[in-house]
């Protein structure tokens, strides 16, 4: 079975949830999913999954990855929330939704109240990771339970190292492009007045 995931690092919403879940699947089944990061502002896709000849894009990717993992059920209302309001850069909308999620975590350690994190935690964590407004909200512990849950999950490399993974892949892309250009004898573009 050939499975390939492409993540666009320049997309307004970087699909950390797709990347993390794919890497999580690969942890127990190495190289099951071939992951490629692109660094392309002009490309409008956020992420793309090629699975047995079918192509899934953006919000259709994560449910497919959940099926591949075949472990826990994706909460459809959470997924809908993640792809709509939680990606917005509007404090009022975000705050009102975070308030509800914070209450959800009052008596739950993980989203589904299990003994370990699952696809719903990864989905929520990845979406919050890609929202630029979340940094200060988490740091200032505006929502105590969300901050605890988020920091805890960040300790797991598959989640916590996802940002560095994308940065490193982008760096590798630039390096290989430079090498390609040098091999083709292209000159480095100089300063344009």
């Amino acid at each position, binding site marked *: 079975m050939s499975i390939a995931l492409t993540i666009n690092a320049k997309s307004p919403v970087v699909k950390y949830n797709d990347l993390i879940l794919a890497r999580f699947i690969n942890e127990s089944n190495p190289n099951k999913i071939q992951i490629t990061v692109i660094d392309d502002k002009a490309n409008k896709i956020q992420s793309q999954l090629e699975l047995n000849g079918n192509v899934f894009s953006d919000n259709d990717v994560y449910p497919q990855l959940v099926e591949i993992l075949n472990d826990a059920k994706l909460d459809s209302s959470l997924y809908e929330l993640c792809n709509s309001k939680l990606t917005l850069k509007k404090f009022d909308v975000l705050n009102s939704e975070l308030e509800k999620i*914070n209450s959800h975590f009052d008596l739950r*350690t993980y989203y589904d109240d299990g003994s370990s994190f699952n696809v719903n935690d990864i989905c929520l964590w990845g979406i919050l990771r890609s929202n630029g407004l979340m940094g200060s909200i988490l740091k200032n512990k505006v929502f105590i339970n969300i901050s605890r849950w988020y920091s805890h999950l960040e300790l797991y490399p598959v989640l916590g190292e996802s940002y560095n993974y994308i940065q490193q892949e982008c760096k590798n892309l630039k390096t290989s492009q430079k090498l390609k250009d040098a091999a083709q004898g292209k000159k480095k573009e100089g300063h344009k007045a």
Partner: protein
Amino acid sequence: MSDLITKFNSLNIKSNTTLNDEQKALTAQWEELYKTNTVINHIPELNLALRDSVYLIPNATEISELDVKVAEQALPVVKSLLTSSKDLAAVIGSHRHIIRFIRFVLSKLDTTDDVISDLNLNVALTKEVIE
């Protein structure tokens, strides 16, 4: 040895992490309270410690024997509070982190408790604010 600790030992969970100084100090502090059977005198402190951390040892990614020991000593106190108070939401609200922690420890050990495990998880609690 208690049932919970026996159960924990049977799971054979090994932590690979080496504790830093802060983690060692906190572990020693709670170990001491456990040994002297005085965890029950430090319920507010326990709730506060668990506010920012899933496990008693900050930044731990796996349950430790210390978690099980402390949960075991706190369990009867929390159960007693939950069964004797008329204002259940207020009791849950002021002990939410211990309750969550004990429920989690029980879940990790694949065991249940008639009071703690049956709590309504959607009970409306007042939002906590750090002053």
